Structure formats: structure tokens, C-alpha cells
């Protein structure tokens, strides 16, 4: 992108005022173009005055496939209108269930894309970030529809077209995410429904869970399936929490009320953890299922750039 020199006319502008305007633009990440600012201060737009045109060309919008339903047509039209108003509209790609978002984003990055906005719901957000968290672009989220939009609350992003204001404000926070076995990622939680295993934590201590089957979860941005009260959201401290408890017994033990007392939860936090299963067990990381005998989880501290709102929960 070519940067042209800033030209100011003394007859039209107070230099001090313009200097402050430019400073505030730089501080805010340069999202609003100078053109917008010039309009605000009553001047004609001048293309030679562009400081950093991140607006049109550097934004990629990934629409989830469920948005093709006619019920979202008006919402999407309103969102696109708002994005144009903020001059942050960009290329739209409609995802299908077979699209690999990582390959797609990598390809677009070669064409200058620096910000990827996920338009969809929790599933879309998790699906894309769990494959592309390490690509080094800034991610944003436009939650659409009322269902499955818990992340919108966590990140402080309003639903539908109101979220465009958050995207335009471009408040960026760096969050932790985890790498699993040096290949996949998760940002919400990893869940092992039932396994006999040994847990090695930060190469300092081990928890032996081989005498019984255990339910295990590692949580970052969402509470694990079996524990929400004790969960504390701290996705920027370079640690994650592991929770485990004995897996539920059979129907008989449930009817007799046995085992409930012993199903107390254990929890501790870590930077690096190794789960050594006795036999390959089902592992669900941000919705992606696999069978693993060995799971290494490493935290990437503050490596994921995410646009967030003021009312975020962390």
C-alpha cells in the first residue's frame, strides 16, 4: 500500500487541531480514514490525504453457511450498510461446510488482508479460530442471530449490526490460545469425556488418574462442560485451568446415589500439560473430535489478536 504525504492547507486548517486529530487516529489504530475525519471537520475529501487506508482492502469477512437462510437477509444487509458507513467494508467470502478457513485466510493474506471478521455464531467463531489462530492476522467477530452467541457476551460485542461499531472502534486485545500436539489449536476448551490417564503438569508434578475413569477438561475462554461456578475467565495470563473428576458410573450407581460424593472436582492451572491416556480416548477440542493416546497442550500467551468491545468479561 502506498502512503502519500500529508498535505495541509493553512487557509483551511488549524495545524494544532489537525495534529491532534492525526495523533488520535494513530492511537485508534488508523481505522478511520483521514477522509472521514476531513468530512467531520467540514472539508472536502482529498485522496492524497490518506494516512493508512486499512479500510477497504485489508478487511476480509467470512460469512458462515447458515447465513444463507432468508431470515438473515435483512440483518446482513444492515450489517453491510453499517460497515460501508464506517468505511471498513471489504471482501466477503461465504463459507461452506467443506471450506478450510486456514487455507482461505492464508491465500487472502497474500493479497494484503490483515483483519479477518468472522460473521456468524459461536460455532463459526470456534471453527475458524481453532484452525487459523496462529496466522498472525487480527480477528473480529460479528455475531448474527440470537442463538448460540455466548462469545458475543464474553467479548463484549453486541449482536447483529450494532457489532459494527465495535469492529470500527478496533479495540484489540491479545488473548491466549493453546496448541495441541503441535498441530491444532483451541481457544475455548478441550474435553475428554472418560479416560484413565496420567497428567504431567509443567514438568513439575504428576497427577495419577489411572485407578479410575476420569472426565477431564482444559478451559480458557469458556467454562468446561461439568463446571461453571468455579471457572474464572482469565484468557490473558498465560495459564489455563485443568478440571477433572471421576467419570459418572453406570445406571445402577446413579440410581443408588453412589459416587456423587466421590465425584468432587480437582483443578489446577498450568502452562504446559501432558495427558497420557492408558488407551486412546475421545478428545474434543473446540468441537473437533479425535482419538488420542497422548495430548500435549501448550499455552501461547497473548498471541491471538482479537477485536473486543468495552463490556468484555475480562
Amino acid at each position: 500500500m502506498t502512503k502519500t504525504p500529508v498535505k495541509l492547507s493553512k487557509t483551511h486548517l488549524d495545524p494544532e487541531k489537525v495534529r491532534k486529530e492525526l495523533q488520535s487516529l494513530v492511537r485508534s489504530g488508523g481505522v478511520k480514514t483521514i477522509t472521514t475525519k476531513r468530512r467531520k471537520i467540514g472539508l472536502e475529501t482529498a485522496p492524497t490525504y490518506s494516512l493508512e487506508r486499512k479500510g477497504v482492502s485489508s478487511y476480509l469477512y467470512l460469512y458462515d453457511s447458515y447465513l444463507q437462510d432468508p431470515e438473515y437477509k435483512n440483518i446482513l444487509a444492515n450489517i453491510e450498510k453499517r460497515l460501508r458507513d464506517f468505511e471498513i467494508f471489504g471482501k466477503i467470502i461465504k463459507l461452506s461446510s467443506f471450506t478450510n478457513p486456514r487455507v482461505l485466510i492464508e491465500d487472502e493474506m497474500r493479497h494484503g488482508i490483515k483483519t479477518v471478521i468472522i460473521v456468524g455464531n459461536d460455532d463459526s467463531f470456534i471453527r475458524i479460530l481453532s484452525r487459523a489462530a496462529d496466522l498472525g492476522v487480527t480477528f473480529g467477530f460479528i455475531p448474527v442471530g440470537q442463538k448460540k452467541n455466548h462469545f458475543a457476551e464474553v467479548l463484549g460485542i453486541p449482536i447483529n449490526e450494532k457489532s459494527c461499531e465495535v469492529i470500527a472502534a478496533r479495540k484489540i486485545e491479545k488473548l491466549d490460545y493453546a496448541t495441541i500436539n503441535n498441530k491444532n489449536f483451541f481457544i475455548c476448551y478441550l474435553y475428554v469425556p472418560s479416560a484413565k490417564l496420567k497428567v504431567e503438569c509443567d514438568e513439575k508434578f504428576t497427577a495419577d488418574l489411572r485407578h479410575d475413569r476420569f472426565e477431564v477438561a482444559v478451559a480458557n475462554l469458556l467454562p468446561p462442560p461439568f463446571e461453571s461456578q468455579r471457572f474464572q475467565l482469565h484468557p490473558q495470563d498465560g495459564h489455563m485451568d485443568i478440571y477433572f473428576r471421576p467419570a459418572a458410573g453406570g445406571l445402577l450407581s446413579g440410581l443408588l446415589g453412589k459416587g456423587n460424593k466421590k465425584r468432587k472436582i480437582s483443578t489446577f492451572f498450568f502452562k504446559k500439560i501432558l495427558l497420557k491416556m492408558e488407551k486412546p480416548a475421545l478428545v474434543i477440542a473446540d468441537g473437533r473430535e479425535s482419538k488420542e493416546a497422548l495430548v500435549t497442550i501448550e499455552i501461547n500467551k497473548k498471541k491471538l489478536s482479537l477485536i473486543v468491545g468495552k463490556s468484555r468479561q475480562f
Partner: protein
Amino acid sequence: MNDKYVGQPGGDVETIVGPSVKVEGDFVSEGNIIIEGQVTGKIKTSKQLRVEEGAKVLADVTADSAIVSGEIRGNMRLATNLELTPTAKVYGDVSTKTLIVSAGAILQGHTLMDESEKSKGKSGKKIESYDENSGEVV
């Protein structure tokens, strides 16, 4: 949060070792630790340690304070206070500023009350051993 811990000094629990869990190694935490299972090795925290009834700790302990209802075999070094409830069993030397021992608790080992307690008008004590039946210092 488990109701049992809400409103208590160790309310913001960060680490819990459940009743059916065995942990081995250096167990280091910046937050409160609750042990209901077994820990072997070393325990270190800058906050409170709670060892619940039925828990077994074979480790040297360093913490700000501790409330013990289970069994500890190892030396304990507390920055502020140690409370032994009626079911507590401690086999090891203890260093603390304040010691609270309930009747029925067992404490076998040297106890050193920190000299800095003198600044608060209390004299330091060195307890050689503690009789579990009478609850008296021998």
C-alpha cells in the same frame, strides 16, 4: 464455587486436589490450595493451604497460612498462622507466627514460633511435643 469455601479467607480457590487424586512432585501455586486427596513431594503457595479430613500429605509445606484437618508428614513453614482442627495429624517440625491447636489434634515435632511475634507483644514459644489425649504441651 463450592459453598463450603464461600466467604472464607480462602474463598478464591485456585488449586484443588480431589479425594480420589494422587499428586506427586513439586506442587507450586500462587493461589489457595485445597487438598482432599494425596500429595507426595513438596507444596508451596503464597496463600492459604487447607488439608481436609481424610487427605494425606507426604511433603514439606511452605505457605502463608494453613488449616489442617487431615494428615501431614513433613515439615511445615507458615508465614502467618497454622490451625489444627480436632482431626489433624501433623508429623514434622512446624514454624509459624500463630498456632491454633484444637483438642484432639496430633502434633509431633518441633514447633518454632517466629521471633517477630515479639513486636506484637507476644513472646515466641518452642513446643517440644504435644499430647494428643490431653491436648497439653509436654
